[in-house]
C-alpha cells in the first residue's frame, strides 16, 4: 500500500484516475490548482488505485493524502 501525498497546497481541480484503475509510477493522476496554475500531480507508486480520498473543489494542504495505491 502506498499513500499518494499532495506536494503543494491548493484546490483539487481534476481527478484523472478512478478507483480500480491500474496506474504506473509517474502517471499524471490529479490536477491541483495553486496560484491560478493547474499543477499535475504524478503518482509515486505503481499499482491499482484502491481509494481516492479527496473530491474536486476540495482545498488540500501540503502532505494531504490524495489517494491510496495497492
Amino acid at each position, binding site marked *: 500500500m502506498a499513500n499518494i501525498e499532495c506536494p503543494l497546497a491548493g484546490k483539487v481541480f481534476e481527478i484523472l484516475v478512478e478507483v480500480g484503475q491500474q496506474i504506473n509510477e509517474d502517471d499524471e493522476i490529479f490536477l491541483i490548482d495553486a*496560484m491560478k496554475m493547474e499543477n499535475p500531480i504524478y503518482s509515486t507508486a505503481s499499482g491499482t488505485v484502491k481509494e481516492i480520498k479527496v473530491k474536486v473543489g476540495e482545498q488540500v494542504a501540503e502532505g494531504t493524502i490524495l489517494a491510496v495505491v495497492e
Partner: protein
Amino acid sequence: MELIKDALLTTGFPALEIGQVIMWLIGFVLLYLAIKKEFEPLLLLPIGFGILMANLPLAPLMVTSTGELGLIGRFYHYGLEWEIIPPLIFLGLGAMTDFGPVIANPKTLLLGAAAQIGVYLTFFIALAIGFTARESSVIGIIAGADGPTTIYLAAKLAPHMMGMCAVAAYSYMAMVPLIQPPVMKALTTKEERLITMKSLRPVGKVEKIFFPIIAMILICLCVPDASPLMAMFMLGNLFRESGVVARLSNAAQNELMNIVTIFLGVSVGTTMSASAFLTFDVIKVFVLGVCAFMLATATGVIFAKIMNLFLKEKINPLIGAAGVSAVPMAARVVHKVGQEANKRNYLLMHAMGPNVAGVIGTAVAAGMFISVLAR
C-alpha cells in the same frame, strides 16, 4: 463656403499632427496586445485607450480651452500627482498577499532584496548613457517588475517618464515567461535545478497577524519615504489576516482595486502625448527595461547560489529569480523551469517567498531613491 470652412476649423481634423497619428498606432498596438493576446489586459487596455484620448487635438480631456484641467487631467492630477492611486493599489495587493511562505522561510527575504541589485545596476547604466539621476532611478525601478511602484516613483521624480516606463514595466511583466528562463538556465547547472526543497512549515494565525504590523513599523522607520506604499500594503494584509474585517478585505481586493485600476490605466495613458513619448529616449528606456529585468533575475539567482555556499540545507537557486516582484508570474516561471529538470519538483510555494519579498524590496528601493533624489 466660408461657413463650411469655419465649421471644419472647429473640428480636430485641421489641428491633427503626424505625431498624434503615430501615437494612435501605438495605442492600437497596446489595445491589440491587451484584447487579442491578453498581455496584462487590466492595465494595457485602459493605457492604450488613454493614449488615444491624450492625442486628440482640441478635445478638452487633459486641459480645456480656458486652461483648466479637463476630465482626464483631473484623474491624473488627483490620482497620480496627489499620489493617491498607487498606495490604494498597494492596499489591494496587501489584501491579496499571503506572507506565509516568507514567514515560514525568512531567508527568502534576502532573495527579494538581492533581486533589487538589478535596480541599482540599471540605475548606474542609465546614468552612464546620459539620463539624469531622477530619470535613471525610474528606469532602474523597472527591474523590480512592479507597475504601481514604477508609476509612484515616476510621479515623484520624473513625471515626463511615467508613460514610457509604465508601459515598459507592464509589457515586460507580461513577457516574464520569455525573458527569465534563458537567464535562469544560463546561470544554473542541471544538478542545481534538480534540488528539491523541504516542505514549508505551517504558519499560525498569530504570526500572520503580527507580521504586517511589525514589518510596517520596521520598514517605515528604516525608509520613511517608502511608507505611503508600505503602510497601505501592510494595512491591506492585516485586513486579510485578522479575519474580522472580511468586508474590507474583499472590498480592497476587488471593488476598490478594480476602480483604482481604471483610473490608474487611463491616467498613465494620458501622459503619453506625442511630444512626451516620441523621443529617442523611449527606445533607450525599452532596451534598458529588458536589461533591467534580466539583471534582476540574474542577481537573484546568483545570490541564491552564494547563499548555498553557507547553507546546510540547500535551496534551489531558481527561486532567486522570483525576487523580481511580478507576483505570481515569476514564481510560476520558477516552478515551470524547475519541473523541466524534474517533473516532481514543486517549487511554486517556495518561490512565493522571494516573490512577495520582492514587492517589499522594490518599494523600499523606490523609497531610497526618493529620500536621496527628491530633496
